């Protein structure tokens, strides 16, 4: 067991070193763990359980985010995504455990809340509170809105379709906020599109930072985060975001105060004052 743990912690630090180079090849994932373990011997930390890659058939490392390692594989016969939280060793172990557990629980709770309200989000298959990992439905052949926008802009064709996409996004977010659900990390890489792209079948993911709130302030900030992510990642999308907000305002019954707060938050933002 100790050997496995030491290797596992080396997996994570090995992966961190390699960064996104780890993405892609299925067999490379677990094998890199071997190489990583040889290269970086690391004392296993205290209390927090380190999760080795789950033994799922067809295992493939999808991505390493700041919070978690995301794998794809078959779980109980279904295509699934396994999110294994990365323990942050700089945190005090008690805090780390509590925070990790809270984020995992929030994610599970929010995903159920979404589904109950008819908001498309992945189905939760299993939550492991020991390693704070979640096993979710894999949205097959999906593309992030981020990748989609990039590809449409690169091909230069049909940029008006992006406006319609913006409207659909606005509708979806309105629905979510009307349920008093705050996503907490709205970016274009946290919204997926199911094929075919023309259907604009959107799915929200990554609810690790989500919480419940009816306050227009919180909803306004949620939208502000998205706006910032939008404009910094995707140049020339001001019209698209405008369409998003317009559609949001039309679709949500409580949108008035929210948009007002959004304007206020924009004024508050970083580096707004022209003082030297």
């Amino acid at each position, binding site marked *: 067991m100790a050997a496995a743990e030491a290797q596992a912690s080396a997996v994570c630090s090995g992966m961190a070193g390699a960064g996104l180079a780890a993405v892609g090849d299925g067999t490379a994932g677990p094998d890199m763990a071997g190489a990583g373990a040889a290269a970086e011997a690391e004392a296993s930390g205290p209390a927090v359980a380190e999760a080795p890659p789950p*033994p799922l058939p067809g295992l493939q490392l999808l991505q390493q985010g700041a919070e978690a390692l995301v794998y794809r594989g078959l*779980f109980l*016969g279904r295509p699934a995504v396994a999110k294994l939280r990365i323990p942050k060793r700089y945190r005090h172990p008690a805090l780390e455990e509590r925070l990790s557990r809270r984020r995992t629980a929030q994610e*599970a709770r929010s995903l159920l809340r979404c*589904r109950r*309200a*008819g908001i498309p989000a992945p189905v939760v298959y*299993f939550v492991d509170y020991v390693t704070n990992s979640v096993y979710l439905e894999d949205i097959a052949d999906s593309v992030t809105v981020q990748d989609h926008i990039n590809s449409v802009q690169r091909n230069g064709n049909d940029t008006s379709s992006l406006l319609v996409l913006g409207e659909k996004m606005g509708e979806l977010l309105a629905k979510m906020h009307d349920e008093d659900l705050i996503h907490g990390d709205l970016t274009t890489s946290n919204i997926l599109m199911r094929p075919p792209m023309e259907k604009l079948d959107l799915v929200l993911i990554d609810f690790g930072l989500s919480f419940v709130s009816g306050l227009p302030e919180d909803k306004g900030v949620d939208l502000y985060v998205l706006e910032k992510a939008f404009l910094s990642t995707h140049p020339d999308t001001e019209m698209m975001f405008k369409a998003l907000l317009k559609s949001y305002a039309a679709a949500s019954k409580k949108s008035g105060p929210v948009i007002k707060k959004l304007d206020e938050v924009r004024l508050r933002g970083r580096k707004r004052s022209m003082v030297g």
Partner: protein
Amino acid sequence: MDLPHRLELFPDCSVTLLLFNHVKNAAALRKKAMEGSIEGALINPAMIVDPFQILVAANKAVHLHKIGKMKTRTLYAEIIFNLSPNNNISDAFKKFGISDNDEALLIVLVVDREKTVNLEDIISQVEGQQVSLDELPQLTDIVKVKKVYKVTPQEEKIGTLVDSIVCRMSTKDVL
């Protein structure tokens, strides 16, 4: 009879499902189950929509069993409890376990690699006809399932019934 399903996270465990119809001795079997003299979880197939639902319940049960955090006393009781959308154990048994005058029965077995389970022995205790799992949809009471799991109409638009059920099963302990 279907092949046993391997649990990926617990490679030594496999789950076998046995479906029976025209069962005459449900009352006696239920008594045996309560005494612990029959191997397996005895489940009412009317509440089961898809074998995946059972696998999710079994996976969670084995996980909790391994870390000593089950809510019930036995692995098989835990599987039945996990099927329920709420945290009331006796309610789970009432809704998902078999009742005395049930005519259909689903037996779920979880087998460790070292142990051997005598399927013939279990099958012989059931006074009924063993049928293929393909017949499960005919035995499902969809109306009752939707009612017990409180599936909303909006939810039905974004996924299948199994999706709604499984989501509730896996997140009920955090609510």
